[in-house]
């Protein structure tokens, strides 16, 4: 019968009975110890030498070893060292049996790998106590190893899941135009799934929209949020929605799906097809840089709240207008780049970033140079955040050379006859941008997806002219000076907010022909007209009333007719099934 534990009950990790290996060259000692142990209920293996001990352990490792120090051939220390090597990962406690009592002896025991030592003559109670302590330690080791193994298995499973998720995420990103010729970037996630994202799309009017985002946290929650942002951005951008509208929709979706405390720091940029101006919005990212040559010409700091924190009514999604020259570069990055640290713990910092930016020559060299500088700086130190950077080159030809937007799969419909007109009052004009929705309707209806960009361009021209010159009474001359451009849009915003009355109608009439059709677009407004007979002929080679001008409309449409004192315009757009 095993003796009762004085404290009552067995402590966790204790083994009663245990298998004890007794190693002692002296027969009497061996028998004495074996006796004590057997009476205590343990199973005993007794050997007379170190080599026998090793043999026994190879066959069947015991729970505990009582090791005599003084033995011929191999002493207790050497045997223990070899034993530990043999057992490897398995922890078997060794208690030395010795006649020496000094501190040096104890130190040697511990150094050889023993747990404790026992001095002759043996006190049975002390022997039991030391054994119990040693077995308790062994129990803890066992538990720790089991937990470690379970954790390793769990981690492996999770990594497998994340890898699958990453692949899914990648295949869903096909709508992305990160490969556009005027775009360079790098994305270095900290873990398998990236908490940063860079999205690029082509708008129906031939420009580009960009989104660079940084979710709080990393891993799975951030990646799931990124999927939502990705879908909303691409769906809306392909339909020609504005930066403001996309930001509002994103904010609403993120506010609804992210828990309190999680948000998306984001910057959005819209570059027009001319690369003459950009709309910029920064809510939570480090300064966006506009670089002309080797000078940082402009810094756009974060002056808005990140998305997903406050409701739409409290968020200002109005972007800033900046004008650009051919060859200018826009540079956007997340805070991971600023905070990347060297082995010494120093941060890369904004100063170094600007340094790299300034030293870079043109042609996409900035991103390569920055990547090199960063890698050299961190030189192997652990990465603690996702690092992302985007460079946009304002080059009109590069932009135009791109393929048309992928968009929705082409739907063909037989040419049909139909007509539609919508009239907007002042309140509608103030609060909505109706063109994307309208374009969506007519493109879907007649299957004109492939002609979308052109029709949209024409629509935009006619609509902006009617709204800005006709109803808001603005003077486009302001738009053509360098500083005037920014002022123009500020004026437009104010004038639109103050608009009290007036109407603007957009009408479509479609006549189907044998293998195509003619779409007649009419725009009418109730405001100020202009002497079209006098003004229009003089527009040769000029930018025109706004944007790319009436010249472009005239080149796309086969007829452009003004009437009602300049208050209405009608164009005919002919298309054929290719």
């Amino acid at each position, binding site marked *: 019968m095993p003796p009762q534990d004085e404290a009552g009950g067995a402590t966790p990790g204790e083994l009663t009975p245990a298998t004890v290996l007794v190693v002692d060259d002296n027969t009497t000692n061996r028998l004495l110890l074996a006796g004590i142990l057997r009476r205590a209920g343990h199973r005993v293996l007794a050997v007379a030498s170190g080599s026998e001990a090793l043999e026994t352990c190879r066959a069947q490792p015991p729970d505990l070893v009582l090791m005599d120090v003084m033995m011929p051939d191999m002493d207790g220390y050497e045997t223990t060292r070899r034993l530990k090597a043999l057992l490897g990962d398995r922890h078997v406690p060794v208690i030395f049996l010795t006649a020496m009592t000094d501190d040096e002896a104890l130190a040697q025991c511990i150094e050889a790998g023993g747990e404790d030592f026992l001095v002759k003559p043996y006190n049975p109670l002390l022997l039991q106590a030391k054994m119990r302590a040693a077995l308790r330690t062994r129990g803890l080791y066992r538990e720790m190893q089991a937990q470690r193994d379970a954790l390793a298995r769990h981690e492996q499973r999770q990594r497998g899941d994340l890898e699958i998720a990453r692949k899914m995420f990648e295949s869903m990103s096909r709508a992305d135009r990160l490969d556009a010729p005027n775009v360079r970037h790098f994305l270095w996630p900290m873990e398998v799934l990236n908490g940063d994202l860079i999205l690029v799309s082509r708008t129906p009017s031939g420009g580009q929209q960009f989104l660079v985002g940084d979710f*709080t*946290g990393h891993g799975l929650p951030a990646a799931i949020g990124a999927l939502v942002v990705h879908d909303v951005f691409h769906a809306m951008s392909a339909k020609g929605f504005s930066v403001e509208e996309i930001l509002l929709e994103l904010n609403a979706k993120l506010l609804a799906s992210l828990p*309190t405390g*999680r948000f998306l720091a984001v910057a959005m940029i819209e570059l027009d097809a001319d690369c003459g101006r950009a709309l910029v919005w920064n809510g939570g*990212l480090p300064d966006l840089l506009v670089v002309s040559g080797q000078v940082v010409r402009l810094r756009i700091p974060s002056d808005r709240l990140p998305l997903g*924190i406050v409701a739409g009514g409290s968020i200002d999604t109005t972007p800033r207008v900046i004008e650009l020259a051919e060859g200018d570069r826009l540079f956007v990055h997340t805070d991971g780049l600023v905070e990347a640290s060297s082995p010494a713990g120093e941060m890369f910092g904004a100063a170094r970033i600007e340094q790299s930016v300034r030293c870079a020559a043109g042609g996409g060299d900035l991103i390569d140079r920055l990547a090199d500088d960063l890698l050299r700086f961190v030189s192997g130190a652990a990465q603690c955040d996702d690092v992302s950077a985007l460079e946009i080159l304002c080059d009109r030809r590069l932009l135009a050379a791109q393929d048309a937007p992928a968009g929705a799969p082409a739907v063909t419909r037989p040419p049909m006859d139909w007509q539609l007109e919508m009239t907007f009052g002042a309140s509608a004009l103030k609060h909505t941008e109706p063109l994307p929705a309208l374009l969506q309707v007519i493109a879907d209806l007649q299957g004109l997806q492939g002609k979308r960009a052109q029709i949209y361009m024409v629509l935009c021209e006619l609509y902006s002219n009617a709204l800005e010159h006709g109803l808001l009474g603005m003077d486009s001359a302001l738009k053509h000076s360098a500083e005037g451009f920014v002022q123009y849009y500020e004026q437009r915003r104010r004038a639109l907010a103050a608009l009290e009355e007036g109407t603007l109608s957009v009408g479509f009439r479609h006549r189907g022909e044998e293998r195509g059709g003619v779409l007649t677009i009419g725009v009418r407004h109730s405001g100020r007209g202009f002497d079209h007979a006098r003004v229009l002929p003089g527009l040769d080679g000029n930018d025109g009333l706004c944007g790319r001008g009436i010249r472009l409309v005239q080149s796309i449409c086969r007829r452009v007719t003004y009437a009602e004192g300049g208050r209405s315009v009608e164009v005919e757009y002919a298309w054929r099934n290719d």
Partner: protein
Amino acid sequence: MGISATASQDGAEIRIRISDRFDFNLHRDFRSAYERHGGSGARYVLDLSDTSYLDSSALGMLLQLREHAGGSKDAVNIVNASPGIREILQIANFDRLLTIR
């Protein structure tokens, strides 16, 4: 290291001091500090004099505190923030959501 919190006599103001790194590791302690001492309606003062580092998860924790405190701007006050910490709060425009003194 970590968080220390004290409540005023009448319980109307809770002062929380955060030392060194304000990051995700303090998540649980931070939450129990404000939940234990006060509810919504109390005023929270966060003393960041010893805080040298603050990351985006800390910003998230500030938002959670703000929600707990009832959501108004003067419910959460940040005092003694270093210039570096201020800058982080500035970039995120958190001065619109909390009071930073």
